Protein backbone atom coordinates (compact mmCIF):
# COMPACT_ATOMS: atom_id res chain seq x y z
CA UNK A 1 0.00 0.00 0.00
CA UNK A 2 2.43 2.68 1.10
CA UNK A 3 5.63 1.06 0.01
CA UNK A 4 8.20 3.82 -0.31
CA UNK A 5 10.53 1.94 -2.63
CA UNK A 6 7.67 1.51 -5.07
CA UNK A 7 6.74 5.17 -4.84
CA UNK A 8 10.27 6.20 -5.67
CA UNK A 9 10.35 3.78 -8.56
CA UNK A 10 7.10 4.97 -10.12
CA UNK A 11 7.65 8.71 -9.75
CA UNK A 12 5.15 11.42 -8.93
CA UNK A 13 1.49 10.94 -9.77
CA UNK A 14 1.01 14.58 -10.59
CA UNK A 15 3.60 17.18 -11.56
CA UNK A 16 2.45 20.77 -11.83
CA UNK A 17 4.89 23.09 -13.58
CA UNK A 18 4.63 26.86 -13.84
CA UNK A 19 0.84 26.80 -13.82
CA UNK A 20 -0.59 30.27 -14.45
CA UNK A 21 -4.16 31.42 -14.93
CA UNK A 22 -4.94 35.07 -15.57
CA UNK A 23 -8.22 36.92 -15.54
CA UNK A 24 -7.32 39.83 -17.79
CA UNK A 25 -4.56 41.67 -15.97
CA UNK A 26 -5.39 39.96 -12.72
CA UNK A 27 -3.43 36.84 -11.79
CA UNK A 28 -5.75 34.01 -10.70
CA UNK A 29 -2.81 31.79 -9.85
CA UNK A 30 0.76 32.41 -10.92
CA UNK A 31 3.67 30.08 -11.65
CA UNK A 32 2.66 27.25 -9.34
CA UNK A 33 4.86 24.14 -9.37
CA UNK A 34 4.82 21.03 -7.21
CA UNK A 35 4.91 17.24 -7.31
CA UNK A 36 2.29 15.05 -5.72
CA UNK A 37 3.31 11.46 -5.04
CA UNK A 38 1.06 8.42 -4.86
CA UNK A 39 -0.81 8.28 -1.56
CA UNK A 40 -0.05 11.88 -0.64
CA UNK A 41 -2.67 14.36 0.43
CA UNK A 42 -1.84 17.99 -0.25
CA UNK A 43 -3.72 20.86 1.33
CA UNK A 44 -3.95 24.31 -0.20
CA UNK A 45 -4.88 27.11 2.19
CA UNK A 46 -5.27 30.83 1.85
CA UNK A 47 -7.91 33.45 2.28
CA UNK A 48 -10.78 34.01 -0.14
CA UNK A 49 -9.46 35.31 -3.43
CA UNK A 50 -5.97 33.93 -2.87
CA UNK A 51 -6.31 31.79 -5.98
CA UNK A 52 -6.59 28.37 -4.38
CA UNK A 53 -9.83 27.41 -6.13
CA UNK A 54 -8.55 28.83 -9.44
CA UNK A 55 -5.48 26.65 -9.04
CA UNK A 56 -7.57 23.57 -8.25
CA UNK A 57 -9.88 24.12 -11.20
CA UNK A 58 -6.95 24.79 -13.54
CA UNK A 59 -5.36 21.53 -12.46
CA UNK A 60 -8.60 19.57 -12.83
CA UNK A 61 -9.24 20.88 -16.33
CA UNK A 62 -12.29 22.95 -15.38
CA UNK A 63 -10.37 26.07 -16.37
CA UNK A 64 -7.84 26.34 -19.16
CA UNK A 65 -4.55 27.63 -17.74
CA UNK A 66 -2.68 30.30 -19.69
CA UNK A 67 0.72 28.77 -19.05
CA UNK A 68 2.23 25.70 -17.52
CA UNK A 69 1.82 21.96 -17.42
CA UNK A 70 -0.24 19.52 -15.37
CA UNK A 71 1.49 16.22 -15.93
CA UNK A 72 -0.39 13.15 -14.73
CA UNK A 73 0.94 9.59 -14.65
CA UNK A 74 -1.78 7.88 -16.67
CA UNK A 75 -2.24 4.12 -16.42
CA UNK A 76 -2.10 3.60 -20.16
CA UNK A 77 0.47 6.05 -21.48
CA UNK A 78 2.58 7.10 -18.50
CA UNK A 79 3.18 10.80 -17.88
CA UNK A 80 0.92 13.04 -20.01
CA UNK A 81 0.36 16.78 -19.93
CA UNK A 82 -3.36 17.06 -19.30
CA UNK A 83 -3.42 20.70 -20.41
CA UNK A 84 -2.48 19.80 -23.98
CA UNK A 85 -4.17 16.40 -24.21
CA UNK A 86 -7.36 16.20 -26.26
CA UNK A 87 -10.64 17.07 -24.60
CA UNK A 88 -12.06 13.52 -24.94
CA UNK A 89 -8.98 12.14 -23.19
CA UNK A 90 -9.21 14.72 -20.44
CA UNK A 91 -12.90 14.07 -19.91
CA UNK A 92 -12.24 10.34 -19.84
CA UNK A 93 -9.64 10.97 -17.15
CA UNK A 94 -12.30 12.95 -15.29
CA UNK A 95 -14.55 9.88 -15.24
CA UNK A 96 -11.92 7.31 -14.40
CA UNK A 97 -8.64 8.21 -12.67
CA UNK A 98 -9.69 11.65 -11.47
CA UNK A 99 -12.47 12.74 -9.21
CA UNK A 100 -13.68 16.17 -8.19
CA UNK A 101 -15.58 16.83 -4.99
CA UNK A 102 -17.38 20.16 -5.09
CA UNK A 103 -17.94 22.38 -2.10
CA UNK A 104 -21.67 22.39 -2.74
CA UNK A 105 -22.91 18.84 -3.15
CA UNK A 106 -25.61 19.96 -5.56
CA UNK A 107 -22.88 21.02 -8.01
CA UNK A 108 -21.52 17.51 -7.98
CA UNK A 109 -24.74 15.49 -7.82
CA UNK A 110 -27.71 15.00 -10.11
CA UNK A 111 -30.43 16.13 -7.79
CA UNK A 112 -33.20 14.57 -9.92
CA UNK A 113 -31.61 11.12 -9.88
CA UNK A 114 -31.75 8.58 -7.04
CA UNK A 115 -28.74 8.03 -4.79
CA UNK A 116 -28.07 4.70 -6.52
CA UNK A 117 -28.22 6.32 -9.96
CA UNK A 118 -25.85 9.03 -8.82
CA UNK A 119 -23.29 6.49 -7.64
CA UNK A 120 -23.85 4.23 -10.64
CA UNK A 121 -23.42 6.95 -13.25
CA UNK A 122 -19.63 6.76 -13.39
CA UNK A 123 -19.82 2.97 -13.67
CA UNK A 124 -22.25 3.24 -16.57
CA UNK A 125 -20.09 5.97 -18.10
CA UNK A 126 -17.20 3.53 -18.35
CA UNK A 127 -19.34 0.77 -19.80
CA UNK A 128 -21.06 -1.11 -16.96
CA UNK A 129 -24.25 -2.62 -18.43
CA UNK A 130 -25.41 -5.06 -15.76
CA UNK A 131 -28.10 -3.49 -13.61
CA UNK A 132 -27.66 -5.93 -10.73
CA UNK A 133 -23.92 -5.37 -10.55
CA UNK A 134 -24.27 -1.59 -10.76
CA UNK A 135 -26.86 -1.58 -8.02
CA UNK A 136 -24.78 -3.89 -5.87
CA UNK A 137 -21.77 -1.63 -6.13
CA UNK A 138 -23.89 1.44 -5.46
CA UNK A 139 -25.32 -0.15 -2.30
CA UNK A 140 -21.84 -1.15 -1.21
CA UNK A 141 -20.56 2.40 -1.65
CA UNK A 142 -23.50 3.94 0.15
CA UNK A 143 -22.63 1.81 3.15
CA UNK A 144 -18.97 2.76 2.90
CA UNK A 145 -19.96 6.41 3.19
CA UNK A 146 -22.40 5.54 5.98
CA UNK A 147 -25.63 6.02 4.12
CA UNK A 148 -28.15 3.25 4.79
CA UNK A 149 -28.58 1.04 1.72
CA UNK A 150 -32.33 1.42 2.19
CA UNK A 151 -31.95 5.01 0.97
CA UNK A 152 -30.61 3.84 -2.41
CA UNK A 153 -33.74 4.85 -4.33
CA UNK A 154 -34.20 8.20 -2.60
CA UNK A 155 -33.21 11.40 -4.30
CA UNK A 156 -30.45 13.52 -2.79
CA UNK A 157 -32.97 16.33 -2.27
CA UNK A 158 -34.27 14.29 0.67
CA UNK A 159 -30.77 14.03 2.22
CA UNK A 160 -29.14 16.27 4.81
CA UNK A 161 -26.14 18.39 3.80
CA UNK A 162 -23.67 15.94 5.31
CA UNK A 163 -25.31 12.98 3.58
CA UNK A 164 -25.30 14.81 0.26
CA UNK A 165 -21.59 15.45 0.64
CA UNK A 166 -20.95 11.79 1.48
CA UNK A 167 -23.04 10.76 -1.50
CA UNK A 168 -20.95 13.02 -3.70
CA UNK A 169 -17.84 11.32 -2.40
CA UNK A 170 -19.26 7.85 -3.08
CA UNK A 171 -20.25 8.92 -6.59
CA UNK A 172 -16.70 10.10 -7.19
CA UNK A 173 -14.83 7.17 -5.71
CA UNK A 174 -16.86 4.27 -7.12
CA UNK A 175 -14.63 3.89 -10.16
CA UNK A 176 -11.50 3.77 -8.01
CA UNK A 177 -9.83 7.02 -9.06
CA UNK A 178 -6.21 7.64 -8.14
CA UNK A 179 -6.42 11.41 -7.69
CA UNK A 180 -9.19 13.38 -6.02
CA UNK A 181 -9.54 17.13 -6.18
CA UNK A 182 -11.60 18.56 -3.33
CA UNK A 183 -12.88 22.10 -3.07
CA UNK A 184 -13.76 22.92 0.54
CA UNK A 185 -15.26 19.45 1.10
CA UNK A 186 -16.32 20.25 4.66
CA UNK A 187 -17.41 23.83 4.02
CA UNK A 188 -20.92 24.66 5.10
CA UNK A 189 -21.30 21.57 7.29
CA UNK A 190 -21.86 21.44 11.02
CA UNK A 191 -18.73 20.80 13.03
CA UNK A 192 -19.85 17.33 14.15
CA UNK A 193 -20.75 16.43 10.57
CA UNK A 194 -17.36 17.70 9.44
CA UNK A 195 -15.59 15.39 11.85
CA UNK A 196 -17.47 12.39 10.51
CA UNK A 197 -16.63 13.38 6.94
CA UNK A 198 -12.97 13.91 7.78
CA UNK A 199 -12.76 10.52 9.42
CA UNK A 200 -14.39 8.96 6.39
CA UNK A 201 -12.06 10.72 3.96
CA UNK A 202 -9.00 9.73 5.95
CA UNK A 203 -10.05 6.09 5.92
CA UNK A 204 -10.79 6.13 2.19
CA UNK A 205 -7.52 7.85 1.37
CA UNK A 206 -5.63 5.20 3.30
CA UNK A 207 -7.60 2.15 2.16
CA UNK A 208 -7.64 3.10 -1.52
CA UNK A 209 -4.14 4.59 -1.59
CA UNK A 210 -5.68 7.77 -2.96
CA UNK A 211 -3.82 10.94 -3.63
CA UNK A 212 -5.72 14.13 -3.04
CA UNK A 213 -5.48 17.87 -3.40
CA UNK A 214 -7.74 19.63 -0.91
CA UNK A 215 -8.53 23.31 -1.03
CA UNK A 216 -9.82 24.72 2.22
CA UNK A 217 -9.58 27.73 4.43
CA UNK A 218 -9.93 25.54 7.50
CA UNK A 219 -6.53 24.85 9.06
CA UNK A 220 -7.99 22.18 11.34
CA UNK A 221 -9.08 20.25 8.27
CA UNK A 222 -5.65 20.28 6.68
CA UNK A 223 -3.94 19.35 9.93
CA UNK A 224 -6.01 16.20 10.13
CA UNK A 225 -6.18 15.31 6.44
CA UNK A 226 -3.18 16.68 4.60
CA UNK A 227 0.39 15.40 4.65
CA UNK A 228 1.64 18.52 2.92
CA UNK A 229 0.51 22.09 2.75
CA UNK A 230 0.79 25.01 0.35
CA UNK A 231 -0.08 28.50 1.53
CA UNK A 232 -1.34 30.86 -1.17
CA UNK A 233 -1.61 34.61 -1.23
CA UNK A 234 -2.51 36.84 -4.16
CA UNK A 235 -2.29 33.94 -6.60
CA UNK A 236 1.15 32.78 -5.54
CA UNK A 237 2.41 30.01 -3.30
CA UNK A 238 4.21 31.76 -0.47
CA UNK A 239 5.12 28.68 1.53
CA UNK A 240 5.00 24.92 1.12
CA UNK A 241 6.07 22.04 3.30
CA UNK A 242 4.94 19.37 5.70
CA UNK A 243 1.56 20.30 7.10
CA UNK A 244 2.54 20.28 10.76
CA UNK A 245 5.79 22.11 10.02
CA UNK A 246 4.02 24.91 8.13
CA UNK A 247 1.38 25.21 10.83
CA UNK A 248 3.75 24.97 13.82
CA UNK A 249 6.80 26.77 12.41
CA UNK A 250 5.55 29.00 9.59
CA UNK A 251 8.34 30.85 7.81
CA UNK A 252 6.56 33.38 5.63
CA UNK A 253 4.96 36.51 7.06
CA UNK A 254 1.59 35.65 5.57
CA UNK A 255 1.64 32.06 6.87
CA UNK A 256 2.47 33.38 10.33
CA UNK A 257 -0.43 35.78 10.13
CA UNK A 258 -2.76 33.04 8.89
CA UNK A 259 -1.79 30.60 11.63
CA UNK A 260 -1.93 33.22 14.37
CA UNK A 261 -5.30 34.49 13.17
CA UNK A 262 -7.21 31.33 13.96
CA UNK A 263 -8.12 29.85 17.25
CA UNK A 264 -5.75 27.14 18.39
CA UNK A 265 -6.23 23.96 16.39
Amino acid sequence: MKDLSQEVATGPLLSVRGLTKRYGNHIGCGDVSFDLWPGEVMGIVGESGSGKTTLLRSMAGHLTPDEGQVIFATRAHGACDTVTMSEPERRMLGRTDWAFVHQHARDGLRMGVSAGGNVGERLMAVGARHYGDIRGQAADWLERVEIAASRIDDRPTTFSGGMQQRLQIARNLVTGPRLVFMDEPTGGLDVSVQARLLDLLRGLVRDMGLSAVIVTHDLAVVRLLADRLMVMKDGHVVEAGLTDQVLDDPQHAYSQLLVSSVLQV
Partner: protein
Amino acid sequence: MTDQSYNFAYLDEQTKRMIRRAILKGLAVPGYQVPFASREMPMPYGWGTGGVQVSAAVLTPDDTFKVIDQGADDTTNAVSIRKFFEKTASVATTTHTGEADVIQTRHRIPEEPLTEDQILVYQVPIPEPLRFLEPRETETRKMHALEEYGLMHVRLYEDIARHGHIATAYAYPVRVEGRYVMDPSPIPKFDNPKLESPAIQLFGAGREQRIYALPPYSKVVSLDFEDHPFDPSKAPHPCALCGADDSYLDEIITDDRGGRMFVCSDTDYCTARRDAGHLGEQAQ
Protein backbone atom coordinates in the same frame (compact mmCIF):
# COMPACT_ATOMS: atom_id res chain seq x y z
CA MET B 1 -57.02 29.58 -52.31
CA THR B 2 -55.70 29.28 -55.84
CA ASP B 3 -52.82 27.26 -57.19
CA GLN B 4 -50.87 30.44 -57.78
CA SER B 5 -51.08 31.50 -54.17
CA TYR B 6 -48.34 29.17 -52.94
CA ASN B 7 -45.13 27.74 -54.24
CA PHE B 8 -45.21 23.92 -54.64
CA ALA B 9 -45.63 22.40 -51.18
CA TYR B 10 -45.88 25.83 -49.53
CA LEU B 11 -42.17 26.49 -48.94
CA ASP B 12 -40.07 28.49 -51.40
CA GLU B 13 -37.43 26.65 -53.38
CA GLN B 14 -34.48 28.10 -51.47
CA THR B 15 -35.91 26.94 -48.17
CA LYS B 16 -36.56 23.45 -49.54
CA ARG B 17 -32.97 23.30 -50.81
CA MET B 18 -31.73 24.31 -47.38
CA ILE B 19 -33.84 21.58 -45.76
CA ARG B 20 -32.68 19.00 -48.33
CA ARG B 21 -29.09 19.83 -47.51
CA ALA B 22 -29.83 19.22 -43.84
CA ILE B 23 -31.54 15.93 -44.75
CA LEU B 24 -28.57 14.80 -46.83
CA LYS B 25 -26.21 15.64 -44.01
CA GLY B 26 -28.45 13.73 -41.62
CA LEU B 27 -28.39 10.70 -43.93
CA ALA B 28 -24.62 10.94 -44.20
CA VAL B 29 -24.25 10.95 -40.39
CA PRO B 30 -27.02 8.61 -39.19
CA GLY B 31 -28.59 9.67 -35.91
CA TYR B 32 -26.78 13.02 -35.76
CA GLN B 33 -29.03 16.03 -35.11
CA VAL B 34 -28.48 18.54 -37.90
CA PRO B 35 -29.54 22.12 -37.09
CA PHE B 36 -31.71 23.77 -39.75
CA ALA B 37 -33.43 27.11 -40.14
CA SER B 38 -36.96 26.02 -39.32
CA ARG B 39 -39.62 28.27 -40.87
CA GLU B 40 -42.84 29.58 -39.42
CA MET B 41 -45.56 27.27 -40.74
CA PRO B 42 -49.29 27.98 -40.85
CA MET B 43 -49.93 25.71 -37.90
CA PRO B 44 -48.88 25.75 -34.26
CA TYR B 45 -45.74 24.08 -32.92
CA GLY B 46 -46.57 20.61 -31.71
CA TRP B 47 -48.77 20.01 -34.73
CA GLY B 48 -45.98 18.64 -36.86
CA THR B 49 -44.22 21.74 -38.21
CA GLY B 50 -40.91 19.85 -38.37
CA GLY B 51 -42.42 16.89 -40.18
CA VAL B 52 -44.33 19.15 -42.58
CA GLN B 53 -41.18 21.01 -43.59
CA VAL B 54 -39.32 17.73 -44.20
CA SER B 55 -42.27 16.37 -46.21
CA ALA B 56 -42.40 19.60 -48.24
CA ALA B 57 -38.71 19.24 -49.05
CA VAL B 58 -38.93 15.60 -50.22
CA LEU B 59 -42.33 15.55 -52.00
CA THR B 60 -42.41 15.63 -55.81
CA PRO B 61 -45.58 16.29 -57.87
CA ASP B 62 -45.78 12.58 -58.79
CA ASP B 63 -45.70 11.31 -55.21
CA THR B 64 -48.57 9.81 -53.31
CA PHE B 65 -48.74 11.07 -49.74
CA LYS B 66 -50.11 9.53 -46.56
CA VAL B 67 -50.36 11.02 -43.08
CA ILE B 68 -50.97 9.16 -39.85
CA ASP B 69 -51.37 10.40 -36.30
CA GLN B 70 -50.98 7.67 -33.67
CA GLY B 71 -51.46 5.22 -36.53
CA ALA B 72 -54.78 6.70 -37.68
CA ASP B 73 -55.45 8.44 -41.00
CA ASP B 74 -58.65 10.06 -39.79
CA THR B 75 -57.65 12.16 -36.80
CA THR B 76 -57.61 15.97 -36.89
CA ASN B 77 -53.86 16.31 -37.16
CA ALA B 78 -53.58 13.74 -39.95
CA VAL B 79 -56.51 15.15 -41.87
CA SER B 80 -55.32 18.75 -41.71
CA ILE B 81 -51.78 17.94 -42.82
CA ARG B 82 -53.08 15.77 -45.64
CA LYS B 83 -55.38 18.62 -46.73
CA PHE B 84 -52.50 21.06 -46.46
CA PHE B 85 -50.43 19.17 -49.03
CA GLU B 86 -53.43 18.42 -51.23
CA LYS B 87 -53.91 22.19 -51.49
CA THR B 88 -50.34 23.45 -51.63
CA ALA B 89 -48.74 20.61 -53.63
CA SER B 90 -51.72 19.04 -55.36
CA VAL B 91 -50.21 15.61 -54.65
CA ALA B 92 -52.26 12.46 -54.62
CA THR B 93 -53.06 11.19 -51.15
CA THR B 94 -53.88 7.77 -49.83
CA THR B 95 -54.59 5.96 -46.60
CA HIS B 96 -53.00 2.74 -47.84
CA THR B 97 -49.47 2.27 -46.54
CA GLY B 98 -48.42 0.20 -49.54
CA GLU B 99 -49.50 2.85 -52.02
CA ALA B 100 -47.74 5.80 -50.41
CA ASP B 101 -44.37 7.18 -51.51
CA VAL B 102 -44.04 9.55 -48.58
CA ILE B 103 -45.67 8.87 -45.21
CA GLN B 104 -45.66 11.53 -42.51
CA THR B 105 -46.24 10.08 -39.07
CA ARG B 106 -46.80 11.13 -35.52
CA HIS B 107 -45.98 8.52 -32.85
CA ARG B 108 -46.19 5.32 -34.95
CA ILE B 109 -44.49 3.22 -37.60
CA PRO B 110 -47.02 1.50 -39.92
CA GLU B 111 -47.54 -2.21 -39.29
CA GLU B 112 -47.18 -3.08 -42.96
CA PRO B 113 -43.44 -3.44 -43.72
CA LEU B 114 -42.05 -0.48 -45.66
CA THR B 115 -40.05 -0.80 -48.85
CA GLU B 116 -36.93 0.76 -50.37
CA ASP B 117 -39.17 3.06 -52.44
CA GLN B 118 -40.73 4.75 -49.44
CA ILE B 119 -39.82 7.64 -47.16
CA LEU B 120 -41.14 7.81 -43.59
CA VAL B 121 -41.18 11.32 -42.07
CA TYR B 122 -41.48 11.61 -38.29
CA GLN B 123 -42.80 14.57 -36.33
CA VAL B 124 -40.45 15.07 -33.39
CA PRO B 125 -41.27 17.12 -30.29
CA ILE B 126 -37.93 16.79 -28.42
CA PRO B 127 -35.00 15.57 -30.50
CA GLU B 128 -32.45 15.45 -27.68
CA PRO B 129 -32.50 12.09 -25.84
CA LEU B 130 -30.05 13.35 -23.19
CA ARG B 131 -32.14 16.35 -22.19
CA PHE B 132 -34.03 14.35 -19.58
CA LEU B 133 -30.95 14.41 -17.33
CA GLU B 134 -28.74 17.12 -18.83
CA PRO B 135 -30.60 20.32 -19.73
CA ARG B 136 -27.57 22.20 -21.10
CA GLU B 137 -27.50 22.02 -24.90
CA THR B 138 -23.78 22.92 -24.94
CA GLU B 139 -23.11 19.92 -22.73
CA THR B 140 -25.34 17.44 -24.58
CA ARG B 141 -23.73 18.33 -27.91
CA LYS B 142 -20.34 17.69 -26.36
CA MET B 143 -21.58 14.39 -24.96
CA HIS B 144 -22.74 13.32 -28.43
CA ALA B 145 -19.47 14.44 -29.96
CA LEU B 146 -17.44 12.47 -27.43
CA GLU B 147 -19.84 9.48 -27.27
CA GLU B 148 -20.35 10.01 -23.53
CA TYR B 149 -23.58 8.10 -23.23
CA GLY B 150 -23.43 6.77 -19.68
CA LEU B 151 -26.24 9.15 -18.79
CA MET B 152 -28.71 7.31 -21.05
CA HIS B 153 -28.26 4.25 -18.93
CA VAL B 154 -28.73 6.31 -15.77
CA ARG B 155 -32.17 7.09 -17.16
CA LEU B 156 -32.92 3.39 -17.67
CA TYR B 157 -31.40 2.58 -14.26
CA GLU B 158 -33.82 5.03 -12.66
CA ASP B 159 -36.66 3.29 -14.43
CA ILE B 160 -35.74 -0.13 -13.10
CA ALA B 161 -35.02 1.22 -9.61
CA ARG B 162 -38.44 2.84 -9.46
CA HIS B 163 -40.60 0.32 -11.32
CA GLY B 164 -38.68 -2.95 -11.22
CA HIS B 165 -38.34 -2.95 -15.00
CA ILE B 166 -37.57 -0.48 -17.77
CA ALA B 167 -40.83 1.43 -17.75
CA THR B 168 -40.00 3.70 -20.67
CA ALA B 169 -42.70 2.62 -23.13
CA TYR B 170 -42.30 5.23 -25.86
CA ALA B 171 -39.49 7.47 -27.17
CA TYR B 172 -37.25 4.58 -26.15
CA PRO B 173 -33.64 5.63 -26.85
CA VAL B 174 -31.63 3.82 -29.50
CA ARG B 175 -28.02 3.74 -30.65
CA VAL B 176 -27.59 4.14 -34.40
CA GLU B 177 -24.82 2.31 -36.25
CA GLY B 178 -22.92 1.98 -32.96
CA ARG B 179 -22.42 5.73 -32.83
CA TYR B 180 -25.12 8.30 -32.06
CA VAL B 181 -27.78 7.84 -29.42
CA MET B 182 -31.09 8.98 -30.91
CA ASP B 183 -34.60 9.69 -29.75
CA PRO B 184 -36.88 7.83 -32.19
CA SER B 185 -39.70 10.34 -31.43
CA PRO B 186 -42.55 9.18 -29.18
CA ILE B 187 -43.24 5.93 -31.02
CA PRO B 188 -44.09 2.99 -28.74
CA LYS B 189 -41.10 0.79 -27.96
CA PHE B 190 -43.08 -1.93 -29.78
CA ASP B 191 -42.13 -0.09 -33.00
CA ASN B 192 -38.40 0.11 -32.19
CA PRO B 193 -37.47 -3.10 -34.06
CA LYS B 194 -39.11 -1.60 -37.17
CA LEU B 195 -36.56 1.25 -37.12
CA GLU B 196 -34.25 -1.14 -38.97
CA SER B 197 -36.01 -0.67 -42.27
CA PRO B 198 -35.52 -0.67 -46.07
CA ALA B 199 -37.20 2.76 -46.20
CA ILE B 200 -35.54 6.13 -45.66
CA GLN B 201 -36.55 7.55 -42.28
CA LEU B 202 -36.38 11.30 -41.68
CA PHE B 203 -37.02 13.08 -38.38
CA GLY B 204 -38.03 16.74 -38.21
CA ALA B 205 -38.27 18.87 -35.06
CA GLY B 206 -39.69 22.28 -36.02
CA ARG B 207 -39.61 24.11 -32.74
CA GLU B 208 -36.13 22.82 -31.91
CA GLN B 209 -34.86 23.26 -35.47
CA ARG B 210 -33.27 19.85 -35.82
CA ILE B 211 -33.37 17.22 -38.56
CA TYR B 212 -31.92 13.73 -38.26
CA ALA B 213 -32.18 10.60 -40.34
CA LEU B 214 -31.81 6.85 -40.66
CA PRO B 215 -30.61 5.64 -44.05
CA PRO B 216 -32.12 2.32 -45.23
CA TYR B 217 -30.99 -0.74 -43.31
CA SER B 218 -29.22 1.25 -40.59
CA LYS B 219 -28.37 -0.77 -37.50
CA VAL B 220 -30.57 0.52 -34.69
CA VAL B 221 -30.12 -0.95 -31.22
CA SER B 222 -32.46 -0.18 -28.33
CA LEU B 223 -30.46 0.54 -25.16
CA ASP B 224 -30.78 -1.91 -22.30
CA PHE B 225 -28.98 -3.75 -19.52
CA GLU B 226 -27.58 -7.27 -19.75
CA ASP B 227 -29.93 -8.40 -17.00
CA HIS B 228 -32.86 -6.25 -18.18
CA PRO B 229 -32.86 -6.75 -21.96
CA PHE B 230 -34.98 -4.59 -24.25
CA ASP B 231 -38.51 -5.96 -24.53
CA PRO B 232 -40.76 -4.57 -27.31
CA SER B 233 -43.91 -5.92 -25.71
CA LYS B 234 -47.45 -4.59 -26.08
CA ALA B 235 -50.84 -5.19 -24.53
CA PRO B 236 -51.46 -8.99 -24.47
CA HIS B 237 -54.67 -8.95 -26.50
CA PRO B 238 -55.77 -9.52 -30.10
CA CYS B 239 -57.45 -6.66 -31.98
CA ALA B 240 -61.17 -6.71 -31.22
CA LEU B 241 -62.02 -5.74 -34.78
CA CYS B 242 -59.60 -7.65 -37.02
CA GLY B 243 -58.23 -10.28 -34.63
CA ALA B 244 -54.60 -9.40 -35.30
CA ASP B 245 -52.32 -10.46 -32.45
CA ASP B 246 -49.15 -8.93 -33.86
CA SER B 247 -50.15 -5.27 -34.08
CA TYR B 248 -49.90 -2.36 -31.65
CA LEU B 249 -53.22 -1.74 -29.92
CA ASP B 250 -55.12 1.25 -28.63
CA GLU B 251 -57.31 0.79 -25.59
CA ILE B 252 -60.78 2.23 -26.18
CA ILE B 253 -63.20 2.92 -23.36
CA THR B 254 -66.62 1.91 -24.60
CA ASP B 255 -68.89 2.92 -21.72
CA ASP B 256 -68.69 4.33 -18.20
CA ARG B 257 -69.05 0.91 -16.55
CA GLY B 258 -65.47 -0.26 -17.21
CA GLY B 259 -66.16 -1.61 -20.68
CA ARG B 260 -63.18 -1.40 -23.00
CA MET B 261 -61.80 -2.88 -26.16
CA PHE B 262 -58.38 -3.16 -27.77
CA VAL B 263 -58.09 -2.25 -31.43
CA CYS B 264 -55.26 -1.77 -33.89
CA SER B 265 -53.81 1.71 -33.68
CA ASP B 266 -52.88 1.41 -37.40
CA THR B 267 -56.30 2.01 -39.01
CA ASP B 268 -55.11 1.10 -42.52
CA TYR B 269 -53.70 -2.21 -41.33
CA CYS B 270 -56.89 -3.04 -39.44
CA THR B 271 -59.14 -2.11 -42.34
CA ALA B 272 -57.11 -4.13 -44.82
CA ARG B 273 -57.26 -7.20 -42.56
CA ARG B 274 -61.01 -6.91 -42.13
CA ASP B 275 -61.45 -6.44 -45.89
CA ALA B 276 -59.50 -9.66 -46.29
CA GLY B 277 -61.96 -11.44 -44.02
CA HIS B 278 -60.16 -11.46 -40.66
CA LEU B 279 -62.63 -10.68 -37.92
CA GLY B 280 -62.12 -10.05 -34.20
CA GLU B 281 -64.60 -10.89 -31.47
CA GLN B 282 -66.35 -7.51 -31.55
CA ALA B 283 -66.41 -7.01 -35.31
CA GLN B 284 -69.86 -6.21 -36.63
